[in-house]
């Protein structure tokens, strides 16, 4: 029976086919059958995680906590030199020049992406803003956030930096980052579940060679990745601790 592989739904839709290329490469290099299933939303993906169907996942840092601490997933690798940063964007003509300019009742457009939302919420704390004195609208895509900003229905929008960078020039020209996180310690991670743990070493051996294999390299480049760095379990545990400290204050 094929292993079940999934990817955190925070990637840009532009990269759907690129993840299938990665999966094809993995199957060929591991000699295993792997079924890749991509989800449009976090809730649907969390449902299959709870049903213990997932064997391999490219997880966002927030969901890594549940995967590792609740479901016993093990760390495999992380994308080389790629960290998760959040951008709070405004329109080019916005009167807000810095975070401290924001006022209570600021209208926020955000996604369900938990780590981006969390990082961005801590970046508005210096203006004494939190979920209790802002108006938050949750959208199903980063494009909708850009539309909210441009259409004037939101004052600020929360983006994953890599997704903001992927917006078209036409859209980006109408926006500007108010603040960008520079945390550098939060990143996605490839994790294996119980059924695939015996294959962890084989998987790691394949991944470290991926960037030197022409087909592997091309699949990685399509995802704007330079390669994989192997990940120790403690590295993920520490990142989970770090994410834990960022959980919104009550």
């Amino acid at each position, binding site marked *: 029976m094929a292993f079940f592989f999934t990817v955190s739904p925070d990637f840009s839709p532009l990269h759907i086919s690129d993840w299938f290329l990665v999966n094809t490469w993995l199957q060929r290099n591991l000699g295993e059958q792997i079924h890749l299933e991509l989800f449009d939303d976090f809730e649907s993906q969390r449902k299959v995680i709870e049903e213990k169907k997932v064997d391999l996942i490219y997880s966002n840092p927030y969901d890594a906590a549940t995967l590792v601490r609740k479901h016993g997933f093990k760390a495999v690798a992380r994308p080389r030199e790629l960290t998760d940063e959040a951008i709070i964007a405004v329109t080019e003509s916005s009167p807000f020049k*810095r*975070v*401290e300019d924001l006022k209570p009742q600021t209208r926020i457009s955000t996604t369900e992406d938990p780590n981006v939302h969390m990082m961005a919420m*801590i*970046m508005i*704390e*210096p*203006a*004494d803003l939190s979920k209790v004195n802002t108006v938050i609208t949750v959208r199903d895509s980063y494009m909708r956030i850009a539309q909210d900003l441009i259409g004037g229905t939101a004052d600020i929008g929360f983006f994953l930096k890599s997704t903001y960078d992927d917006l078209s020039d036409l859209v980006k020209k109408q926006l500007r980052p108010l*603040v*960008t*996180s*520079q*945390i*550098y*310690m939060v990143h996605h991670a490839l994790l294996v579940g119980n059924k695939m743990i015996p294959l962890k070493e084989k998987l790691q051996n394949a991944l470290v060679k991926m960037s030197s294999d022409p087909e592997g390299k091309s699949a990685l480049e399509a995802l704007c990745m330079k390669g994989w760095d192997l990940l120790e379990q*403690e590295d993920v*545990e*520490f990142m989970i*601790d*770090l994410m*834990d*400290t*960022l959980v919104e*204050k009550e």
Partner: protein
Amino acid sequence: MKDMLPSDVPRPGTSIRHKYFDGFERTIIYTDIETSFPEGNLIVSRTDTKGKIIACNKAFCDMSGFSKDELIGQEHYILRHPDMPAAAFKDLWATVGKGKHWHGYVKNLRKDGGYYWVYATVIPNIRDGKIIGYSSIRRKPSRAKIHEHNELYKKMKLQEAK
């Protein structure tokens, strides 16, 4: 950690003999020069169970004025500003010792005698049910919170001096 010397600070400051809770003493010279927390950054450090720094990030070095080599192996309390009441740190250790998270506003001392305010969260690193150390993550506080805590800590210090 050596005594601070007048040459360590960019302009004349207040010199005191500061005694830490473990009996260690050193001369501190502090000034009223504030370094503001950079937007979007987090200061991250890890300590062992005794409070000795075992890892830190670049933002920690930038804000404290110490190099990584100077910080690793030092007690975290080298950043303690004399304006901070002892009760705040007692509460911190009592809370994390129970395996809980601690949050608080802290005025830290820089190597050059200046200071910076942070909103700190300290959590125990629990592995296999045991505390193996602590992580401290500091982020930018609002000016209103800084003002509020500055006043509160002044009152607490007065109380402690009685």
